[in-house]
């Protein structure tokens, strides 16, 4: 049975009607027309669908819309803008990180929460925080360089 949900996404509130079991990813993409969270696996194994729910990275491909509750959802589009980039976004451009870029939500949204909570992280801490995310193009080294650069920018 479909239900109504009121979702706060990137600072705007949207009302959608959906089956409560619908993964948040499809509500964001289909009902709200947001393209940035991507379908990679539907199994919480890759990170391409990652958004923040109340500041914590979640895999929207396995999170039912009903579990988003009254929480605040932030997508990559809400992380920063060309005018006011998040340090990670600036670092990603500086380090020319992505190739195809389809994986980008996982890395940026996970790293954003990590760097917010962990100042001056070690390389081992960074690798641990990002472990499990997938990049098939093999940009691993560039990702690490960018996260270190952003960490330095964030003090």
């Amino acid at each position, binding site marked *: 049975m479909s239900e109504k949900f009121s979702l706060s996404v990137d600072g705007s509130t949207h009302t959608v009607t959906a*089956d409560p079991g*619908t*993964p948040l990813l*499809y509500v964001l*993409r*289909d009902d709200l*027309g947001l*393209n*940035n969270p*991507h*379908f*990679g*696996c*539907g*199994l919480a*194994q*890759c990170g*391409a669908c990652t958004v923040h729910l109340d500041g914590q990275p979640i895999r929207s491909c396995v999170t039912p819309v009903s579990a988003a509750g009254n929480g605040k959802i932030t*997508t*990559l*589009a809400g992380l*920063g*803008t*060309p005018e006011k*980039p998040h340090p990670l*976004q600036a670092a*990603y*451009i500086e380090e*020319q*990180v*992505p*190739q*195809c*870029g*389809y*994986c*980008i*939500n996982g890395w*940026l949204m996970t790293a954003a929460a990590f760097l917010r909570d962990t100042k001056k992280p070690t390389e081992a801490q960074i*690798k*641990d925080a*990002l*472990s*499990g*995310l*997938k*990049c*098939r*193009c*093999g*940009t*691993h*080294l*560039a*990702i*690490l360089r960018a996260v270190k650069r952003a960490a330095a920018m964030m003090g």
Partner: protein
Amino acid sequence: MISIAKLNRPSRRALLKSGGALVVSIGAPMPLQLARAAEEAWLVGAQPPLTPDQLSSYIAVNADGTISIFSGKTDLGQGLQVALAQMVAEELDVPFTAVKVVTGDTASSVNQGGASSASGIQEGGKQLRAAAAEARRVLVELAAEKLGVSAAQLVVDGGVVHSNTEMAKSVSYAELVGGRYFNVTLAWNGKIGNPLYAPGKARPKDPKDFKIVGQPIKRQDIAPKVFAQQDFCTDIKVPGMVHGRMIRPAVAGAMPVNVDESSIKDIPGARVVWNQGFLGVVADKEWDAIKAARDLKVTWSNPTPPFPDQASLYDHIRKAPVRKSETEGRPVGDVDAAFKNAARVIEAEYEWPFQSHASMGPACAVVDIKADQVTLWTGSQKPHFTRDGVARILGVPPEKVHGIWILGPGSYGRNDAGDCAIDAALLAKAVGRPVRLQYMRDQGTGWDPKAPASIHRARAAIDASGKVIGYEFTSKAFPRVDVNSNESAPHDTLAGQLTGVPLKSGDGFGVPEESYGFANKRTGYWETIAPLLDRGSPLRTSHLRDPIGPQVHFASESFMDELAAALNLDPVEFRLQYVSEPRDIAVIKAAAEKAGWQPAPSPRKGQGGNTVSGRGFAYVQRHGTRLAIVANVDVDRSSGKIWPRKFTVAHDCGQIINPDGLVRVIQAGVVQGISRTLWEEVKFNNKNVTSVDWQSYPILDIAEAPEAIDVVLIDRPEIAPSGAGEPAIRPVAAAIANAVFDATGVRIRRVPFSPDNVKSALS
């Protein structure tokens, strides 16, 4: 929903009209104050046919003085667009920022083969460079007539042609051409795809005059990705569109015998499309399509399970009848006599598993069939061929299909994107609505065309003095292309095979590329065997990045290391004794020097403890490119885990267009090579492929990333650029295997070097 207007690429006409004061109206070229014969001959108001022999098919000077270039190559995120713009800006003497690159749209570019064989610059750039040089020649001739100055006295700076004695005597490209099309015929070689070449009369610039080529200009496509403004193929939405999902059998080769459509009657808008083995569903909402595909009750036929046990894969290859064999190139000397006279013969055999493209996301395509026009949005890296495939499966002429390439979720060869486009076309035709089809993860990994599994045998004849007097290398393998490297023919697609199109399996393999000057040498022989399942197989083979390259050179370069060890020689010194080409010698020396290589035979002596370290060397060629690589690894003996700690690459692909982009492409290629070496193996049982996600098809995790990949670029401006997108993967497995041998004294001859495999090899 994205509007169509946003998604459609600007038309040629719109591009030509763009700009402020110089806008011209459609179909009405700027009136000429002085009609000149040359102008009438070289410029026209209406676009000449989009054929490979027309200069206008590659390049246009827009009304605002910007340059548009149209490439049938696609940029998968490796910076090709920047490199192409650099090459064109250089030839035309315009700023880099004046060049706009349009790629992979069948309405604006000819078939240059798409992304293929690392030829974006090697072939695609070569053609655009030739076209730009010809455009400059024509523009300077036009300026000469307009200014009354001989062409020899004219120079071009920033898109303005002026006299070299009187700066004031000048005219801009925009003033000369703006808004009209070149009407210049090129000397086309009659080929399409990668080998297409159509030069004009002009010679490209002398590299000593380069100002833009060779500069580390940054990519323009990064920021849109970082700010979530980049539309991928998966983001295409068109009015009236429905979402599709395909249904594949649990047992490969099984066909649906009964489909109970009532099982999904409660899912809004869900419909079934069934034709022989082709089975899919559509629904208005994507999640509903997924549910319908999951819930649809299907009764399948019960075929004999088609596959051997995975454990017997290599035995199967050894024993299977040879379907095709070939000797490429000519043997050197008398190999048989060398082995007869040998004081010692060394031999080894190597094994490589099936591997999957396992793209970041499963493929997606959108097909919109209208009465007079079919539009295809695809992430397939060869969109002109995809266009042809869609036309054929729909039975319409190719010119009625507009193929638009949009970045897909990763693309490393013939992945699942091509099949997805053809499937989407059949769904769209069946339901009479535009269809967006995305595969699911298990289909992306489980049902993409696979890189072939193979075995390789190498043997060497050594004389009494320790000299290699004979070398032989052979392969026996599944063919590199059960299905072609593009999807233009229905028999090369799952949809075609599942709807009864007569089969026509491809064949072929490949051989090592190196310059070892052994006196007697036979390395060109290969044998291929029949596929395990001839129709609709999840183990059908096709090109995965550097097709057959990693397999063959894992074996050939591991074997060189085995020879060096057997002769108690340093691996670098051994290679330098036999490598004969100066460019090969240069990369070998450069890599060794940069890595601080200290000569010593492997294995390393005197290491104790659980974690041991080693260094390994490999060198390869690929289609003109040469590189050498040093791997430094740590091996945890008790767990079998390898940490590929550091790599050093020396890379020579001739003339370097963009060193910054090149380094990144090499580094990412090495990482993908590490992943394929340490982790990647398509698992299967006798019924089907069981590698269906990232747990069952693991790739290199970021926690295992090397701490550094140092790259030494050897620039050779006088040598035409060759490819870089694939060569760096090629030597990685051998370098790691050689490093593991150096560390442990144990030779691993089967990929992947997963902890379990390494542990059992060490025990």
